[in-house]
């Protein structure tokens, strides 16, 4: 019984916190891909850039971690704001292949830029002492960082849900997504809305990159390395299903953690087997409404 409770506490705490990291780095993509129907494969670049700015400022100027998170959000949001009218807007509603090609090109530009500015080695990342400390939960001793991830993830889920479901801004976004022409007709500035949404998605990416930097170290190849990871989360949940993508991320985190613990050799395939199974059954994602 003791072994079982130990195993369960491990899988739940480590699995859910890992799932939260997955959620945090992919929620921005869920926003852009779902709400704007745009295949932004360069999403990881915004995560890496925001994370890189935050982590390097922490190291060089001793910027406190929580402030660094704000900087990460702001830096990526700003970059998104600048790039959106130049690179993304011309391709809205256009051929998906064009969108894919442009954003893949953007990935390589980002990798080269990160290499040039920050060097090729992973950026040194030190957690502040209050996060590096351990918390005694009686059944288990857990790093404070993992609990922090769960708390922040839950908070973010709540804030996104409140914004989308309970504010006028959220209502306008949902309207613009459902029917852009009608939304435009009733006076919603869809162009402006898309720019703001994209900015939000990129900001969330940067925040995710900085939050997860302890587990996912930031180096120039980051945008490419984790591309498959967040595409998987977003695909299984279905584009734009932000709340659902949180559940999917948590589920994947728990399954992968338990899998790697119990059956290390098979666990590597587990995530991909799940992806294939889900997409064969529900090609638009687990939670998509039938088209």
């Amino acid at each position, binding site marked *: 019984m003791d072994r079982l409770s130990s195993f369960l506490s491990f899988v739940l705490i480590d699995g859910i916190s890992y799932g939260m990291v997955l959620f945090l780095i992919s929620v921005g993509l869920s926003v852009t891909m779902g709400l704007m129907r745009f295949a932004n494969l360069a999403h990881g670049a915004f995560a890496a850039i925001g994370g890189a700015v935050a982590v390097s400022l922490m190291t060089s100027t001793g910027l406190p971690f929580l402030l660094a998170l704000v900087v990460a959000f702001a830096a990526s949001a700003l970059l998104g704001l600048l790039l959106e009218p130049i690179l993304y807007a011309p391709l809205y509603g256009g051929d998906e292949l064009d969108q894919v090609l442009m954003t893949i090109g953007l990935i390589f530009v980002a990798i080269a830029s990160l290499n040039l500015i920050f060097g090729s080695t992973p950026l*040194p990342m030190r957690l502040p002492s209050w996060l590096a400390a351990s918390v005694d939960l009686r059944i288990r001793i857990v790093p404070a960082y993992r609990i922090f991830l769960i708390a922040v993830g839950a908070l973010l889920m709540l804030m996104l849900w409140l914004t989308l479901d309970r504010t006028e801004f959220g209502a306008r976004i949902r309207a613009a997504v459902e029917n852009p022409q009608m939304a435009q007709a009733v006076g919603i500035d869809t162009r402006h809305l898309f720019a703001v949404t994209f900015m939000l998605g990129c900001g969330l990416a940067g925040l995710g990159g900085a939050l997860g930097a302890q587990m996912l170290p930031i180096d120039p190849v980051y945008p490419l390395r984790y591309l498959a990871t967040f595409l998987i989360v977003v695909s299984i949940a279905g584009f734009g299903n932000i709340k659902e993508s949180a559940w999917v991320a948590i589920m994947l*985190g728990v399954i992968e953690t338990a899998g790697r613990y119990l059956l*290390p050799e098979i666990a590597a395939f587990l995530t991909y087997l799940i992806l294939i199974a889900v997409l064969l059954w529900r090609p638009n994602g687990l939670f998509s409404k039938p088209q």
Partner: protein
Amino acid sequence: MKHSLVLASAALFAIPLSTQAQTIKVGIIAPMTGGSADWGVQFQNCIQLFQSQNGDSVSGRKVEVIYRDTGGANPSLAKKHAEELIVNDKVNVLGGFFFSPNAFAVSPVLTQAKIPGVLFVAATPNITQTSPYWVRTGYTSWQSAVPMAQWAYKQGIRRVYIAVQDFAPGHSVQEGFKTAFTRLGGTILGEDRMAMNTTDFAPFVQRIADAKPEAVYMFVSPGPSSIAFLKSIEAAKLKERGIKILGVAETDDQELESVGPVAKGVYSSLHYAVSLPSEMNQSFVKAVVSRFPKDGPPHAGCVGAYDGMRVIYKMIETGKGTIDEKSVEAVKGFTWQSPRGPVSIDPDTRDIVQNVYIRVVEEGRDGKLYNKVIETTPAVKDPWKEAQKK
């Protein structure tokens, strides 16, 4: 007018031909770009350092070095570079090689062209067996793994858990450590091969903790994965539970800044350390750091290239100004002093015979982390080939 033009063009053609007879060309195949670019950069830097210290001519012949980029593990590209270097650039010898698959792909080219190849780093033991033209100045994976097993046993460690990344170099050190450790009488409590796509290492660290070993022997390719693995080990407080962490290159000096304080107390087994106290090494390190301040202290890549050039120069000397198919024979048994210590080329296997050092990461007097050498195993021949003989 036309006459002199023809003469001028003829003269132009004549010049390269005559200098070609005088220049020895070395073709270096290495990752100059991509994730492992710092190895190619170290090759280049330390070759330049060698030539600045030893001159760029040997026996009246100028030694010219040409670089070709593989970008990563790309066997077909490495083979193409080798062929082009030999046929188009007319190189006399090939060198470099960080990724073993690239070296394997070049083996048949060496044999066919009868051109020597010098392995600066690529560590799979049997590369030198795939062509009689290979000479190794780097190291083999078993040269690192076996002395570590021997040292661990000597410390009284009897129960070890092995956790390596699931690819060829990981499997190689896993085999090497396990063979040596069990032969001495130790027990391997468990062996995990961690998938290359692992993001969160917590499950693997939990498995290690559950087995309650006295030490864990790890191999994770230096980079984001090794950093994540070491941080997971720290979070699970393995060191506090008395479990010694034994590795290969995860905490080598050039990685310490990225890895951070979690590297403290981690042991590793390698054929070089920046802190080696010999006068030759200390002046070597100073020279590298002052010439190339942006690229960090020398590591195994630098030493492999530096000694690789030493061997190439020896080939030219004994060949009285040329390198040919007899050059490999000429350097068998060659003994010299390297920044890493006394070294020689094994006449039977053409591998380098060298000291292997057990290091531990400690805080230096300047407060910065470094690898301190705590044990030296002298004159280690490649244990893998020794094991094949039995």
